[in-house]
């Protein structure tokens, strides 16, 4: 009980948050240091760069953040399920292209928005079916990315399509300096986190992501869950594409080019373990903020934008290294056979209950 990191919600505190799963709460506590990093980065940037503090800069920062968070939510759910989705960028591009078909689809701009998300959902479901058929998620979604990007480029050449400015103006509005889409992204994040930690399907995602073999043997609804997980990622990617258009005002099949590395970097920096089942979706927020703020700093200081890509790669590797060093905190599956952390003083393989030994002593 002495170890705060592993037993943070002893009886009294537990009552307040008792409606939440212990694992979900523990995952947040495990990630507590991550939340400090963006705070530090923001404070430094705000002190050093006066332009960083301007409302326009804040607005643009949050507008950049929205698509990163939205797409990372889908990616995180897939990674928690032990998979990976490399098609998120292509699907985001497809989403924007479908959106631009507004003039030619029934329902106009509103209809195009719905079609855009449905297109993402369909691609995701196809990914899910491929994975169910036994294709490695890495390969399935990689191949799908090619198919989707090609299709989007073909659709884009349709001369009648144009970015629906009216719709973009609506979804791109801001309340003060805060874009509506940023609020939507955060709400989606909390909803997804709650769904993953409290719903039965979410629990199956965590369990099967950690050990699919046991999940299969216990007869969990693997088919349904796989399709739901990849479908969600597809739909969220398309929505993320919409959030990109709201910022850039261009519908383009290649708009999501950086989304794959952005989403994977965000998810892994957030401490969600690549092998599945371990981590907290809420940590996406600080991770995405780190990426977005550094991007903003690079833009504001007029540094070459290519440094941004380099930074993301370095950040990803550095984060993995730090988590590796702090191994006990993220608790990789292969470390779990190690000590019983709730009793720090006791030996790791002490299968003996101490009282039993004491009993034997007393008998003597």
């Amino acid at each position, binding site marked *: 009980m002495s170890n705060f990191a*592993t037993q943070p*919600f002893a009886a009294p505190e*537990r009552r307040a948050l*008792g*409606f*939440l*799963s*212990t*694992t979900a709460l*523990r995952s947040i506590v495990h990630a507590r240091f991550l939340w400090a990093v963006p705070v530090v980065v923001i404070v430094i940037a705000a002190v050093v760069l006066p332009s960083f503090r301007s409302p326009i800069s804040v607005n643009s920062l949050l507008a950049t953040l929205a698509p990163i968070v939205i797409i990372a939510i889908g990616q995180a759910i897939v990674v928690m399920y032990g998979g990976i989705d490399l098609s998120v960028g292509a699907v985001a591009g497809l989403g924007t292209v479908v959106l631009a078909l507004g003039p030619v689809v029934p329902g106009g701009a509103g209809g195009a928005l719905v079609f855009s998300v449905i297109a993402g959902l369909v691609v995701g479901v196809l990914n899910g079916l491929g994975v169910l058929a036994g294709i490695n998620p890495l390969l399935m979604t990689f191949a799908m990315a090619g198919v989707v990007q090609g299709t989007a480029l073909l659709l884009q050449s349709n001369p009648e399509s144009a970015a629906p400015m009216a719709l973009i103006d609506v979804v791109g509005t801001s309340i003060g300096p805060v874009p509506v889409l940023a609020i939507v992204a955060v709400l989606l994040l909390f909803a997804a986190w709650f769904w993953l930690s*409290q*719903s*039965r*399907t979410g*629990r*199956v995602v*965590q*369990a099967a992501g*950690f*050990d699919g073999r*046991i*999940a299969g*043997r*216990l007869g*969990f609804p693997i088919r349904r869950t796989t399709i739901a997980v990849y479908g969600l990622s597809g739909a969220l990617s398309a929505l993320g594409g919409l959030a990109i258009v709201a910022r850039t005002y261009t519908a383009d099949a290649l708009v999501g080019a950086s989304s794959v590395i952005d989403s994977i970097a965000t998810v892994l920096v957030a401490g969600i373990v690549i092998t599945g*089942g*371990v981590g907290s979706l809420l940590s996406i927020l600080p991770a995405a903020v780190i990426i977005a703020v550094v991007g903003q700093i690079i833009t504001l200081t007029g540094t070459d934008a290519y440094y941004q890509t380099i930074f993301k790669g370095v950040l990803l590797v550095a984060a993995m290294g730090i988590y590796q060093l702090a191994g006990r905190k993220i*608790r990789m*599956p292969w470390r*779990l*056979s190690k*000590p*019983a*952390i*709730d009793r720090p003083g006791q*030996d790791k*393989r*002490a*299968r*003996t*209950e101490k*009282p*039993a*030994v004491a009993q*034997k*002593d007393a*008998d*003597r």
Partner: protein
Amino acid sequence: MSEQAVTCSRVSKSFGATRAVSDIDFFISPGEVLALVGENGAGKSTLMNMLSGGLAPDTGSITVAPPSGGHGRAVAMVHQELSLFDNLTVAENLELDRTGGRAFVSERQSREAVRRTLDGLGVSIDVDATVGDLTVGQRQLVEVAKAIAVPPSLLILDEPTSSLEAPQVELLFAAVRALSAAGTAVIFVSHRMEELFELCDRVLVMRDGKQIEFGDMAGYTRHSLVEAMVGRETTTFYPDRALKSLDATTEISLDNVSVGSALTDVTLDFPAGSITAIAGLDGHGQSELAEVLAGALKPTSGTVRMRGDAVRLASPRVAVRRGIGYIAPNRRLDGLLLDKSVSLNTTLAAAPRLFRSGIVSSAKERETVAGVVSRLAVKTSSLFQPIIELSGGNQQKVLIGRWLIYDKLQVLVLNDPTRGVDVGSRAQIYTVIRDLAERGVAVVLVSTDLQEILGLADEIYVMYSGRITGRLDAEGASESAVMHLATGGEHLV
């Protein structure tokens, strides 16, 4: 026979050309406890899988009465391989298993229900503990709790006691008795004979997929049951001891080795060519001692010497290079690549010496592995069968075989080598261990099974709370003498 809880009539099952189960015919009345016994590979697992609905029989029929409450499962099974998710808490694991219910989990209700189940079982495990943090024994109890959360018509327990301590076994037995009093039929599989006699009403003996005997437990003695299982006399269970050579060189020794609070000032010599056993109650430092020898655990002070020279065993890899083999107690976690073939698992340690060019010669591999398989009578359909499909005893034989073909082996450290291994396989494993010792290998045997230590070892050291409390010659040593030392008693002399 509709009043029976389970009726199995003329059930058969084949896999390819292998007849795994043939013509099994038995029944269990509500509240009865049936002992299902047989050597590894006798077809017990296949039969249990058919009973639990995981496999369909080729011929014959299985009828299980619906559960008394009208809800829950008819058959619940506790597998030998645990089916818990280490990343979730105890409560979350049990909640996952509950059928039906709403789309979202009510955390309070779930915790409350799980706490009641655990209380009913009489165990005090925190429902909010992450399963990965529990000991193997605690996990086993959680697994049992999961199976009986809603009383089934038939509960199948596949070696539930192999990782439990005596007090935990008592808890389990009390729970089984309570369930059977409430009308649940139980099938109990164990290799510990005394448990079978303590708990079971009836017994079904299987051998080579066939039903050998089915009758009241009371009609059997320990001896007659073992005989029915193996189909032969078992007088030569342990191999003969080697002639004692006084001038045996010391292969490896510990010099004032301590590890934290687990091991204190241990000084021991392990001579080549003999089996040295470390006895003691579980958790008194024997495991740490084995791991120090295997290079898996670094001593906080003291030196390890090989043939007199101080060595630093920085990792198991270094230890293996120096000729030290280790068999860990948990073969699934620490010993085997479960998805890989028998062949790969066998040649894992010896590969660098077998294939010096770095290229695996399949002919040589086949020859070597076939040698091990026939020597240890490993039951496997092919050398390329994934090892996870083998029974526990056969997996353990592969682990032993791995060191058998390592020509550089000088020290073999065995940590509980026959846990969950049946009688017939044990005899074969013991013979091979003795052969290795005669080849000049210093064998270190850590075990909590006193019979095994007394039967197999040449000399016995006893540990109590991290210290060596005494040395006994195996010839003439008695269980009570060892127990005396193992519980902290002074040396009797």
